[in-house]
């Protein structure tokens, strides 16, 4: 097996390997450095291009996970972003998402370890997503777009390679799901009556933000024949109260991706985003017997005290802010998607960070990745 070298000539803190080019993929597979798919070889030139575009020095720490005694350097982030297939212009997005992942509120150590097997789901909101190559319209949650596919993949590779989230080490997922390869939702600009996600969360219209959630896979919400807002909301609430979703009745967060027809009907019926969120908080409350009928046992532990409130019900989402509404998808028959976080907020909360684009093109520090 080829040996590592510490090679100052490549200007790197990381060790390097010199390989026969045709052996690179097998070498990376053998060492467990990939997600099972081939990678782009992380050469010093490609990594340097990432760092320059990101405006960050390679030795800068861009995230820490104290529970794992691990720090993520910009260089290691760049190596994994190259491997994922990111273009350099997407590296600032990756850095912001790493920043979110390492925020204590996100609970990164738990998210990456849990038997529940959560995805690192990136929801991106910004004024120029199309220019950056992100797809928010047809097949918004599906394949076919490099930016969507590779930014999410970079997050998983960082988790695997830098933070040790691998099946043979610190990832205890019983099943996992395909969103663990990559998961990114880009926001289609909402109808003019609604604010985009970033503005709703208190950021400026001209900023680009990433919101990171630890999630299950997307659940399609079909309602194609009921043209009323009430009917669509009832379908969303029904999706949100699947009793076998772990966080139902325990207070988790959800990302709702409102498809074209559903958002059009809701807007035309005069529903604001806030009114939808408030409605769904109430409509997703469930009784213990509703859960028990599905075989669920009530927990009364410090992390999940399922003692009903005064109305005899349990909250699935406790506040309107726990529902992240995002618009995406092309005209079709009437589809939305419900993406629940994998566990209650006591374990992990969604975190939003601003993407710091390096407008000078020089290699300066990236303030958003502190």
């Amino acid at each position, binding site marked *: 097996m080829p040996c590592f070298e510490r090679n100052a000539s490549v200007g790197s*803190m990381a060790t390097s390997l010199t390989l026969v080019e045709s052996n690179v993929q097998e070498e990376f597979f053998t060492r467990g450095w990939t997600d099972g798919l081939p990678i782009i070889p992380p050469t010093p030139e490609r990594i340097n291009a990432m760092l320059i575009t990101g405006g960050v020095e390679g030795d800068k720490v861009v995230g820490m996970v104290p529970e794992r005694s691990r720090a993520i350097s910009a260089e290691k982030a760049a190596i994994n972003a190259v491997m994922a297939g990111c273009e350099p212009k997407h590296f600032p997005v990756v850095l912001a998402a790493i920043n979110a992942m390492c925020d204590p509120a996100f609970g990164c150590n738990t998210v990456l370890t849990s038997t529940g097997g959560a995805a690192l789901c990136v929801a991106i909101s910004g004024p120029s997503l199309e220019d950056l190559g992100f797809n928010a319209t047809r097949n918004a949650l599906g394949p076919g777009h490099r930016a969507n596919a590779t930014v999410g993949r970079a997050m998983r590779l960082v988790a695997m390679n830098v933070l040790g989230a691998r099946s043979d080490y610190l990832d205890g997922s019983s099943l996992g799901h395909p969103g663990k390869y990559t998961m990114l939702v880009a926001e289609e600009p909402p109808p003019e009556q609604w604010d985009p996600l970033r503005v709703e969360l208190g950021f400026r219209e001209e900023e680009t933000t990433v919101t990171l959630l630890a999630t299950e896979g997307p659940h399609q919400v079909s309602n194609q024949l009921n043209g009323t807002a009430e009917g669509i909301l009832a379908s969303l609430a029904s999706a949100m109260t699947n009793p076998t979703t772990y966080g139902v009745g325990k207070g988790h967060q959800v990302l709702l991706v409102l498809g074209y027809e559903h958002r059009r009907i809701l807007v035309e019926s005069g529903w604001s985003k806030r009114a939808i969120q408030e409605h769904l908080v109430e409509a997703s409350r469930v009784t213990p017997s509703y859960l028990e009928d599905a075989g669920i046992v009530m927990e009364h532990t410090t*992390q999940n005290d399922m003692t009903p409130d005064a109305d005899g019900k349990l909250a699935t989402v406790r506040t309107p802010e726990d529902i992240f509404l995002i618009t995406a998808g092309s005209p079709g028959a009437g589809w939305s998607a419900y993406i629940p976080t994998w566990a209650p907020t006591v374990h992990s909360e969604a975190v939003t960070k601003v993407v710091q684009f390096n407008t000078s093109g020089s290699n300066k520090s990236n303030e958003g990745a502190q």
Partner: protein
Amino acid sequence: MSLITVLNPEYEEDNQRHVSMATRRELIEPVTIAVIDNSKPHAKELLTYVAEGLRDYLPVDEIIVHSKPSAGKPIDADEAEMLAARAHLIISGLGD
């Protein structure tokens, strides 16, 4: 045969701070045992059972239970200090 240089994507431990285990101390009798309940179902019962079992080997005076709000989060420095002040022996566990 063309050669290519690639960089290691894994965490490298150069800058990791290595810590050694705390000095083992002799138990002061009678013993107070603290159990750290990680908040998963049955964790408290299981660990308390283990602590009760130690009564056969040690002069146990008291068993105290400290419950964390989330299995995923470590106890903080204040909690650690409080437990160190109150207990002679602490049992914790990891699991589902």
